[in-house]
């Protein structure tokens, strides 16, 4: 094994301050972050990564808290990444998921981190995926990514999870269909939370109808619909079992490998985009020279682009 940086070593050893620091470095894209992630990437692959999504107020945070407690009772360590939206106007955010997660305090086997979406330009995708890398390398057995799942970036991040659970609640009526439209395709498990409320059976029936009408490329996994009452813990153990069943199915069917390759491809493309966006902008010396050369008809845009991209990563 090649030598790794001291910070990476401390993350792998599971030191809490190092883990917290590493998550800040990847979120803020500080110097040395790519080297850190390179060190950590080789130590990943051991975690079960779950995505939990659903509309605001559907009880995601409470459900994640219940799931985390369930995994802890089964002797597994848990990392939670809770995503909340940033204001488009000011860039600020109020991250409130932790309020529901107080029951998990004081357990060194649980690590919770809140992340703001920070605009739509891929910031979330990178920060959240890199956070998964850090928590995985730190040896967490289960990583839960909680997000409202609005927008392409969040759906892309969810696609990085091995198992995606989409949470609905009774009484949203036709709204359920509208909200689910983009998420139906990536749901591996449907959860009807607050199942003690009137109308839970109706919501289950509606979901079942929708699932029948959704074309799915994956065969061999019948998307289950689980009912939970996260506030009391009802159904949470069964849901954890379902996630494990799905994980086992991913392994035996070969679908897990397919998803991992697709995810790796996505991450390579995002990194490439970042290199290009950073290097090819007004103010970068080579870029300005190339702009002048194209304007002066000394070269053409495609040739200039070829040379610039080649020079980006020597």
């Amino acid at each position, binding site marked *: 094994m090649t030598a790794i940086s001291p910070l990476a070593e401390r993350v792998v050893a599971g*030191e*809490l*301050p190092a883990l*917290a*620091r590493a*998550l*800040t470095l990847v979120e*803020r894209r500080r110097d040395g972050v790519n080297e850190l992630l390179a060190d950590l990437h080789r130590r990943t692959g051991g975690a079960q990564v779950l995505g939990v999504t659903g509309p605001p107020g559907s009880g995601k945070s409470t459900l994640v808290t219940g799931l985390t407690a369930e995994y802890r009772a089964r002797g597994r360590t848990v990392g939670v990444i809770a995503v909340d939206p*940033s*204001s488009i106007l*000011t*860039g*600020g*955010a*109020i*991250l*409130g998921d*932790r*309020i529901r997660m*107080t029951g998990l*305090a*004081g357990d060194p086997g649980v*690590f*919770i*981190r*809140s992340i*703001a979406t*920070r605009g739509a*330009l*891929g*910031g979330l995708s990178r920060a959240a995926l890199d956070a998964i890398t850090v928590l995985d390398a730190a040896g967490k057995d289960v990583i839960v990514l909680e997000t409202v799942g609005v927008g392409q970036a969040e759906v892309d991040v969810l696609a990085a999870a091995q198992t995606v659970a989409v949470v609905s609640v009774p009484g949203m009526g036709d709204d359920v269909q509208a909200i689910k439209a983009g998420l139906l395709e990536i749901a591996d498990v449907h959860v009807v939370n607050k199942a003690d409320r009137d109308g839970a059976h109706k919501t289950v029936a509606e979901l079942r109808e929708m699932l029948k009408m959704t074309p799915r490329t994956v065969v061999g996994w019948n998307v289950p619909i689980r009912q939970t009452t996260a506030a009391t813990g009802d159904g949470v153990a069964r849901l954890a079992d379902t996630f494990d069943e799905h994980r086992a199915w991913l392994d035996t069917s070969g679908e897990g490998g397919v998803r991992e390759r697709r995810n790796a491809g996505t991450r390579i493309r995002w990194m490439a985009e*970042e290199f290009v*966006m*950073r290097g090819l902008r007004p103010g970068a010396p080579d870029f300005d020279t190339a702009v002048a050369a194209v304007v002066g008809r000394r070269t053409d845009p495609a040739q200039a682009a070829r040379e610039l991209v080649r020079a980006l990563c020597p």
Partner: protein
Amino acid sequence: MDISVEEPIRVMLAKIGLDGHDRGVKVVARVLRDAGMEVIYTGLHRSPEQVLEAAVQEDVDVLGVSLLSGAHMPIFTKLFELIGQLPEAPRFAIVAGGVMPDEDELALREIGVAEILGQDTPPETVADVVRKLGVAAAAR
């Protein structure tokens, strides 16, 4: 991607102990959010241990503790005692907010509180003070 955009400061706002009044801290949360910061609110009735654990995990730049119960001295004393026991000193600055008598201000600063923002502090001042402390902590 515009990399010239300033990265948001991360702030945790906490209520510790038997103090059920969180209207003020919620207003502060919105003031800081509207000033472009990312605010993590802990909710009511937390223990110093819970708040410190959360602040370390979140690696925030500023920890603001709102107290209206009159128990600010024992609570901040306990908080800094716990910080002293951490394996490494955290980056964040600690701000006290709420109702605290002027005569306690010096004692609070002596145990390590960076700033004290009383109940009559204008919102712009709150944002300015937290931003200044946050920028310094983010560089650490």
